[in-house]
């Protein structure tokens, strides 16, 4: 049977057991039924009572006692009913019947209990029975009397004394019922209540699943007791605020107060404490002042003695009862003293835990690093155990089987005697027997740590000199030396595991003779440390995350900028291609007609005019084509290129175009061939050469061509950026696999560029040259081509000293990796 279903099963048992309880006698039932005060059947009930001589006697005695002085003449039930009212008779009958039914001797119940209703425990006949039946009834009677007296003394209570008496008598009906049904289990509950002085109902609910209030109500319903009594059984001991609208709340209050008074007078036996505040509230609501309560208590002993005698319960006089009360009060005091000392011991232990946690939290600050937290754990450990731990091993997250990432390594911190970290190093997690990285969290949490640090023994069995353990082993070995411990001693050192549900884990390695104090302190603290460690690890993770986030957002901004440029260029591309088509048609007509004219005017003086028109049309269409190339350069088409011939060809073109022939020195690479888009790159290089020639170099222009290895990090960064700019893949035609690049420096010592020219160097149609020169599309076009090939074009220029243009074009891999042809390549070729 699982423990969780225990209370549920108990409730079923209890309810079934209640059904086996004896029922009220027919007389009692009839008497109660008649409570609606109908005259019919009255005589019959009276006859019924009178037919039972014992009952009659007891009822009449009770009635007489209840109304001392005025009741000398009560000799028959009928007369009693007439003189004292039907309620008095009812109360008397119920009291007598209840006591006879449930006030049986302990032995008879014990026999019944062995029948099996509580059979999950062996029943020893000699076992002490904490449930004191006689004491219980004496208490019940005391409460009844107190309730009766209270009803009499507090006019404002507006409760009939007789009713109050019966209510007081039955208020703990549930306890009787529980004891009847589950004698053994209930005895344990009662015992606990005695020790703890905590409210009984609470313990009943905790261990039985049901309390005596509910049980009593169930029984009262079954017996069809008057509603007022049902309410009292169910609701007594509740504070007044808890039952605002109950019809019999005053009666409930009187009984609650009476219960407290009876306990205060120490009459009878009633386990468990009561809610003192509820009692106070009831007292003030019912108008039962301290003096009234004192008066009631003063009269109580005598009243109880009389009633007990009447019901045949222990022939004790008022005097004897007083002595018993005193004994009981003394016993209670002694119990109280011992339980108080237990409580104070526990309290002082808790205070230390709280102080330790407080000290730890005071030092802890939000946003602290894991290292800070580990240091504080060490300090906290030292303050509690009296000795600093030797080392701390930390693992930020569980190792993945696939690969050991850096953050799966163990962080080993060695500490000195003042708990100050002396060194911290990262070491790969130890591998276990299965070859997988060792999960520190599992070690810290699992059985491996029991029996004084199997982890450490396991480590100690390895000789770091013989079988290297890696950095962890070395760290631990140096820790051994540092703490002046022998290896044997080290093997016996203790370890304390800290496992956070947030992922990280740590092991505190310490001297076994200085552990944390046992008990809740260690538990609370380790939980708290683990938690703090987890929080610090999360904090670190967050910081890392936010750093990478900001880096990513930077990349994103870059990508967006490039995308925007790309988009605007794409739009310009569309625009120029549309415009070119539209413009080329009329230009065809202009050029064609001019050609026809020139043909007709052959030899005529106007022939040249017509030819000029043709040239102008050609220039315009060239311009449009260039503009389109700037906006939408054609995709790079690499082909094997003889660099020397290619450069010389381009130089010739530049010289032809500019009509300038200042000296140019070509410095060519060893490798004679490379794989590149020679048409496109050629266009770019021609522009650079033209610019250099036009800058009026003082001595010469140097063209230096090199093939260089690309920095792999740069390639990677570019590839990453291309990834980040996913969707804008057309932006970057870099081949991330390119390992080499063509580097061309065109350096002239001409006039250089003005600040303004440098700033606008790549703006289409900007030209710093005097009016009438070629339109400034050269540099923008060159740069676009470089970009299209995945390369760059940069300018360095000083006014009056010259300009250096650096063009870098990544090479298609298979050719870039060609071995340089040592014998044929190289040398400086000068071209005039």
């Amino acid at each position, binding site marked *: 049977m699982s423990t969780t279903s225990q209370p549920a099963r108990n409730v079923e048992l209890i309810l079934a057991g209640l059904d086996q309880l004896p029922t009220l006698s027919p007389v009692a039932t009839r008497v109660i039924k008649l409570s609606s005060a109908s005259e019919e059947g009255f005589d019959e009930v009276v006859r019924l009572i009178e037919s039972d001589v014992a009952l009659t006697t007891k009822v009449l005695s009770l009635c007489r006692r209840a109304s001392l002085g005025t009741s000398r003449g009560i000799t028959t039930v009928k007369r009693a009913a007439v003189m004292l009212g039907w309620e008095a008779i009812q109360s008397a009958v119920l009291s007598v019947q209840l006591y006879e039914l449930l006030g049986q001797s302990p032995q008879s119940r014990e026999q019944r209990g062995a029948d099996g209703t509580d059979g999950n425990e062996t029943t020893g006949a000699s076992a002490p029975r904490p449930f004191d039946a006689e004491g219980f009834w004496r208490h019940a009677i005391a409460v009844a009397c107190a309730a009766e007296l209270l009803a009499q003394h507090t006019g404002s209570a507006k409760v009939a004394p007789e009713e109050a008496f019966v209510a007081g008598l039955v208020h703990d009906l549930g306890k009787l019922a529980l004891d009847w049904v589950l004698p053994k289990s209930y005895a344990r509950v009662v015992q606990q209540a005695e020790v703890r002085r905590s409210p009984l109902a609470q313990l009943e609910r905790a261990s039985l699943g049901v309390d005596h209030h509910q049980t009593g109500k169930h029984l009262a319903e079954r017996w069809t007791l008057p509603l007022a009594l049902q309410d009292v059984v169910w609701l007594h001991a509740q504070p007044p605020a808890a039952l605002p609208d109950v019809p019999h709340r005053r009666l409930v209050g009187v009984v609650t107060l009476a219960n407290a008074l009876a306990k205060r007078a120490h009459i009878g036996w009633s386990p468990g404490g009561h809610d003192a505040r509820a009692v106070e509230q009831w007292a003030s609501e019912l108008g039962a002042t301290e003096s009234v309560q004192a008066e009631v208590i003063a009269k109580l002993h005598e009243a109880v003695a009389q009633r007990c005698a009447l019901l045949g319960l222990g022939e004790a006089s008022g005097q004897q009862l007083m002595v018993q009360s005193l004994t009981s009060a003394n016993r209670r005091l002694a119990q109280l003293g011992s339980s108080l000392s237990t409580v104070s011991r526990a309290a002082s232990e808790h205070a230390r835990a709280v102080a330790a946690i407080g000290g730890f939290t005071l030092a802890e600050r939000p946003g602290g690093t894991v290292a800070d937290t580990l240091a504080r754990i060490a300090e906290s450990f030292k303050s509690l155990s009296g000795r600093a731990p030797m080392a701390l091993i930390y693992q930020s997250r569980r190792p993945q089987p696939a690969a050991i990432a850096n953050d799966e390594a163990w962080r080993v911190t060695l500490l000195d005697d003042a708990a100050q970290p002396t060194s911290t190093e990262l070491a790969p997690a130890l591998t276990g027997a299965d070859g997988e990285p060792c999960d520190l969290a599992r070690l810290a949490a699992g059985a491996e740590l029991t029996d004084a640090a199997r982890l450490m023994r396991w480590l100690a069995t390895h000789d770091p000199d013989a079988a290297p353990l890696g950095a962890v082993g070395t760290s631990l070995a140096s820790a051994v030396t540092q703490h002046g411990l022998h290896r044997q001693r080290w093997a016996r050192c203790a370890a304390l595991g800290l496992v956070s549900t947030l992922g990280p884990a740590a092991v505190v390695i310490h001297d076994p003779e200085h552990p944390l104090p046992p008990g809740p302190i260690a538990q609370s603290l380790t939980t708290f440390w683990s938690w703090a460690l987890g929080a610090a690890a999360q904090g670190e993770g967050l910081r890392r995350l936010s750093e990478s986030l900001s880096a990513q957002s930077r990349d994103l901004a870059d990508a967006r900028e490039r995308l925007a440029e790309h988009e605007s260029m794409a739009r310009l591309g569309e625009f120029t291609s549309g415009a070119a088509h539209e413009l*080329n048609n009329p230009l*065809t007509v202009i050029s064609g007609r001019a050609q026809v004219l020139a043909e007709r005017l052959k030899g005529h003086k106007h022939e040249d005019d017509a030819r000029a028109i043709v040239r102008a049309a*050609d220039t315009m*269409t060239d311009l449009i084509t260039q503009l389109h190339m700037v906006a939408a350069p054609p995709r790079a088409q690499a082909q094997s290129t003889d660099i020397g011939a290619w450069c010389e060809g381009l130089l010739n073109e530049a010289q032809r175009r500019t009509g300038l022939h200042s000296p140019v020195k070509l410095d060519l690479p060893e490798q004679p061939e490379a794989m590149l888009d020679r048409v496109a790159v050629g266009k770019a290089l021609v522009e650079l050469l033209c610019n250099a020639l036009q800058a009026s170099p003082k001595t010469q222009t140097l063209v230096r061509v090199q093939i260089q290895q690309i920095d792999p990090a740069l390639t990677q960064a570019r590839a990453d950026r291309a990834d980040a700019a996913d969707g804008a893949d057309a932006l970057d035609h870099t081949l991330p696999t390119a390992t080499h690049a063509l580097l061309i420096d065109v350096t002239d010592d001409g006039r250089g560029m003005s600040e303004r020219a440098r700033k606008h160097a790549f703006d289409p149609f900007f030209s710093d040259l005097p009016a009438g020169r070629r339109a400034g599309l050269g540099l923008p076009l060159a740069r676009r081509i470089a970009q299209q090939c995945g390369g760059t074009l940069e300018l360095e220029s000083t006014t009056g000293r010259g300009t250096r243009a650096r063009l870098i074009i990544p090479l298609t891999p298979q050719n870039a990796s060609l071995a340089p042809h040592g014998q044929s390549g190289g040398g400086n070729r000068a071209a005039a």
Partner: protein
Amino acid sequence: MSATANGSKNKWSDKKIFTTGEAAEICKVSQQTIIRCFDAGRLGGFRVPGSKFRRIPRAELIRFMQDNDIPTELLDTGVRRVLAVDDDNAILELLQDTIGRDARFELRVASTGFDAGLAIEQFRPHIVLLDYMLPDINGNQVCRRLRENPELRGTKVLVVSGVIKQEDVQVLMESGADDFLKKPFSIPQLTEKVFALLNA
């Protein structure tokens, strides 16, 4: 400019309609064979209204000869039939004033894709000068249709266009064009390209 620079004229060169006897002579078969093919519908033509005389239009005769692998050189005029397709009338006029005046060429023009289709069927040009952007269907469509017809397999296509987008030129070449000439062009450049293609 010489009118017979490329090929010589014969008695059939300018004839539009042929009799069965003439057709037999051109095809170098018997007249009965021509009549049988005419009656079987394999050689298209008409009868002279009010008589039984069969007449065969030039285009039908060429088709018939091509179908039956009969050399057409007897019909060859030596003049290169050029069809220029462009939506810009100014261009067409320019072409008419240049290659249209060149005796080596017989020039027809069309300004839509639809007209181009009709002219290709009727005129059977040796070469089509095709613009990319046409009002109804684009040049590449015209080109593809032309290439789908096996009768026109000898017809060359020279794309003459102001497009500068490499991709567009690519599309045209892929749809079956033989060469590309960018507008604006020089007249000698154009005739050079045309002869280069026709003599290929």
